[in-house]
Each structure stands twice: as structure tokens, then as C-alpha cells.
């Protein structure tokens, strides 16, 4: 395996209470190779979103990342970045797409303007160049570039989510963290978006950290998968291994929780 793009080492995160702490993430380590899709699966409260937040350094008190933790991107510890380094890092190296990302578009600005704001701040692009880039990115996510003068409310939820993804891709990040990016969307739209992202990562070479509770979907999309339970990474392996030869009881139990389209449950 090539040198990992992202390397999470001994990540431990506590939520500090008045008298005692809640351990949300417990000594989690995993690597994501360049261009790889790594999935984190688990139920609500298992710590998967807490990890996503830590990678983007989005945590607020009372969250506390314990000192032995390290999050290395290309060998550089993300946890050591200062405010300025962080601003640069967040868009150019790592982009985030959340479940409610489609609601993060500014409702009073045209799509074009929202692309321009990002491109100007992070790449110092001028109007004309930014417009070309916007058209290119919209085409990538199957939205007609002549709609860039429209406002967010003129698009459906799935289209807005694709626009957010296009904005994220516009800066050529090397890693995209996707936390339940399609959970609020219908299955057909979900499939369209994820399939498109899969094509794009083959083409552009970015890596994806994909977080969802839907194991079936995860196996379709991911190269490797980690299963989380109560803050711990209980099993990790190739998507095929997690599907066909799960080892941990919890992984087996999760599989047995999904009804199959062909009758019975998936496993």
C-alpha cells in the first residue's frame, strides 16, 4: 500500500462534564490511502461523526481531543495547525459535506456568487476565471451551467446537495469527509449523487471518508470499511471482507438488521 493520505492514530475524544467525562471516541486508528473511499459505519452515538468533526477541527468545548491523539494528513499533524493554517487546510485539503449541507447555501446569493466567494478567498481567482471554473464544476455534478445565475431555492434538495459537493470539489481537495451526505434524500437521488462521486474520485483522485449507518450502501461505494461501536473501532477491513466474512459479532448483528430486497435479511 502507498503512504496513507490520512492517518488517524490513537484518536481519543472526551466530552468533559462537570463531574465526569463521556468518552465519545476511544483510541481509534485507521488510514485512508490517496484516492480511496473509506467508510465508517455505526449507529447513532457510536462516535463516527465525532471523528469527522475532529478531522476538520470543528469541535467546540466541552469536546476534548486527548494528547496522545494524532491526525496526520500527508504526515503533518492536523491538530497542530493554528487558525491561519486551519482556514487554508479546511477547504483546500479537506472539504466537508454534511447531511444538512444543502441547507448551508446562502439563500439570498446566486450560485455563481457562492462559488466565486470560495474561489476568490482560497485561490484568489478573478470573476471570469471563477465563472469558467463554476461551469466546469456544475457540469461535473450533472447540473446545467446556465443555471448558475439561479438562487438555491430554485433547486431541489438533491440538486442543492450536488451543488455543495461541486463547491467542495472546486478547490481540488485531497480528502472529502462526507457525514451521511444523502440520508435526507430519496434513494434514486442518493444513488445518482454517490455514483457520480465515485466516478469523480476515479477521475480526480481525491479520497473520501464516508460516514453512514447504511451498511449495504457502504459496501457498494467503499474500498475499505471500519465498524464502530460505543466509540471503538471494532472491526476494519476491505468492503468485501466486511460483507462476506464479518468477524465481529456486532458487524454480524448489523448485517442481520437489514432486510433484503430479495426476501429475508441481508445476512
Amino acid at each position, binding site marked *: 500500500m502507498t503512504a496513507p493520505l490520512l492517518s488517524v492514530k490513537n484518536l481519543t475524544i*472526551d466530552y*468533559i*462534564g*462537570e*463531574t465526569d467525562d463521556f468518552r465519545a471516541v476511544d483510541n481509534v486508528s485507521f488510514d485512508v490511502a490517496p484516492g480511496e473511499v473509506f467508510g465508517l459505519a455505526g449507529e447513532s452515538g457510536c462516535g463516527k461523526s465525532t471523528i469527522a468533526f475532529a478531522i476538520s*477541527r470543528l*469541535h*467546540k*468545548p*466541552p*469536546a*476534548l*481531543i*486527548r*494528547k496522545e*491523539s494524532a491526525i496526520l494528513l500527508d504526515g503533518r499533524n492536523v*491538530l497542530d495547525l493554528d487558525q491561519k493554517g486551519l482556514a487554508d487546510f479546511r477547504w483546500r485539503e479537506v472539504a466537508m459535506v454534511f447531511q444538512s449541507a444543502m441547507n448551508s447555501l446562502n439563500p439570498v446569493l446566486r450560485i455563481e456568487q457562492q462559488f466565486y466567494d470560495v474561489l476568490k478567498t482560497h485561490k484568489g481567482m478573478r470573476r471570469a476565471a471563477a465563472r469558467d471554473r463554476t461551469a466546469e464544476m456544475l457540469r461535473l455534478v450533472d447540473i446545467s451551467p446556465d443555471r448558475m445565475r439561479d438562487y438555491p431555492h430554485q433547486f431541489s434538495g438533491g440538486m442543492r446537495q450536488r451543488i455543495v459537493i461541486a463547491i467542495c470539489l472546486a478547490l481540488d481537495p485531497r480528502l472529502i469527509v462526507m457525514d451521511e451526505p444523502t440520508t435526507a434524500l430519496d434513494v434514486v437521488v442518493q444513488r445518482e449523487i454517490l455514483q457520480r462521486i465515485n466516478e469523480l474520485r476515479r477521475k480526480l483522485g481525491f479520497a473520501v471518508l464516508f460516514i453512514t449507518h447504511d451498511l449495504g450502501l457502504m459496501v457498494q461505494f467503499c474500498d475499505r470499511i471500519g465498524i464502530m461501536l460505543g466509540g471503538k473501532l471494532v472491526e476494519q477491513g476491505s468492503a468485501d471482507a466486511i460483507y462476506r466474512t464479518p468477524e465481529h459479532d456486532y458487524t454480524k448483528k448489523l448485517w442481520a438488521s437489514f432486510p433484503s430486497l430479495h426476501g429475508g435479511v441481508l445476512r
Partner: protein
Amino acid sequence: MKTSSFPLIHNRKAMVGALIVAFILAVAIAAPLLTSYDPGARVGRPHQSPSLEHWLGTTRIGQDVFARLVYGARTSLAVGFGAGLLITIVGTALGIIAGYRGGKIDEVISFFTNMVLVVPNLPLLLVLAAFIGQASPWVIALILGCTSWAWGARVTRAETLSVKQKDYVKSAEMMGEPRWRIMTFEIFPNLISIVGINFIGSVIFAIITQATLEFLGLGDPKVVSWGTMLYGAQKASALSVGAWWDILTPCFALAFLGIGLSLLNFAVDEIANPRLRTGNRLGRWQSLIRSGEGRL
């Protein structure tokens, strides 16, 4: 974190506030045990300064200030809580009915609410009190109750509109629960914090307003209350003759009660909106950051 059924006990503001109010209440109830003087009678020479005989001195006409203070607490508390209760009952009932029933009923109630809301309160009270002339505390409480419910009604209506959308209300409707039961048993218990804030706020308002009206001479001067104490002291030019005890005693009493009730109100507010909570909840987090145990 454990949730307690009595969150007020764990809130320091609430505890201090409750202690203050309870203390004043105890004083009012125990008034005859605390002083042997008749608060209305002339029991000494005019404007005596505080002494062992008269702990807080005497008034211009020789009444004992301490006796007036403890007996006056009864009136002020009774009017405050009486009017506060009336204001809260009317406001809550109208707010829930308007919010839950909607349509024509809402329009009518909202119309009256807005009308009462735009009429300036104190001038109206002044006019009413002047019209009645030397109003007794109970009349003042009644007037306050009838003119001050609008704010509570509005807030309660707004909150009812959001609670009404909840599935548990829909479920009760589908089950065939009668409307009155939905309003009193499904919606009302979820408005408790708003009703509590409304009640305490109304009590503070009623106590201050009653004192104001009496201070301005619109109350019955024969009644012993903190407002008439202020009125008497003002009329006797207590400050200019140096009888500070005569005027400062009711002032401090009112302020003390006001502080107690306000602390309770903040506490209820904090419990209803956890975001308002302050204090050293992040203390441990900060010390862990400082000691290098971790970072963000």
C-alpha cells in the same frame, strides 16, 4: 448527566431566590410574634431614630417602623401573589385557547390582547385608581389582574402554536380526546416553564405597581403596606428631616423581595433554556486544556 425531577434544587440562583422569598413570607406570617406593637397605632414620639425599643425607629406620627414593615409585608405579598395569580390564570387560559383553537376564536382573543397591550399600563392604572379613589389593596390587585394579562397571553399563545404541532397532540386528537383535555393535560404541562416565568414576573410587577400607586397617594392610606409606608414617609418629608429609617426601610424591603423573585425567575428561565446556563461548567475542560491533557 442525570436529570432531576426537581432541577430548581440544583440551581444556586434558584436556591438564594427561594430563600429570600421564603424568609419574607415567614416574616409576614410571623408578624405578631416578631413585634408587640400595633402597626397602625401611635406607640412613641415622632421620628425617633432606631433604638432597642423601636428597632427601626418611628414615623412622623409615632408609629413603629419595624411593626409596619413586618405587617406591611403581608399586604404587599398578598397583593403581589394575588394579582400575579390572576394575571397568570387569565393570560395562560386565553393564550392556550387562542393558540390551540385558532380561527375566529384566535382572532377575537388576539384582537383584545393587542388592544390591552397597546394601552399604556401605568397611566391606565392611575386613571382607574383615581376614579375609584383610595383603592384598597384588593381593588388594586383586581385592577392589575384585569389590565396586565396581555403579555402573558401573547407569549403563551406563541408557545402553544408550536406545541400544538407536536405529534403527541395530534395523537391525542386522533384518539378522540376532548378539546379541554388536550388543552389542560397535553399542552399546559409543556408550558409550565413559560407559565412559571409569567407568574413570577407578574408578581414582581404587581408588587412594584401596587407600591407605586400607593406611593402616589392613590391607595387607602389607612392600610399598612410597603407602598403606604413610602407614601407616609414622603408626605412627612422624612429624608429632608433626616429620618432615613422611615423611607429606606420600605425601599430596601421592596428591593430585597424584587431580587429574590428575580433570581427565581432567572433560574426558571435557565432551566427552560439550558443555553442560558452560565458558571463553571467548562471549568474542568479549561483546566484539562491548560494542563496539556488534550486540545480541540
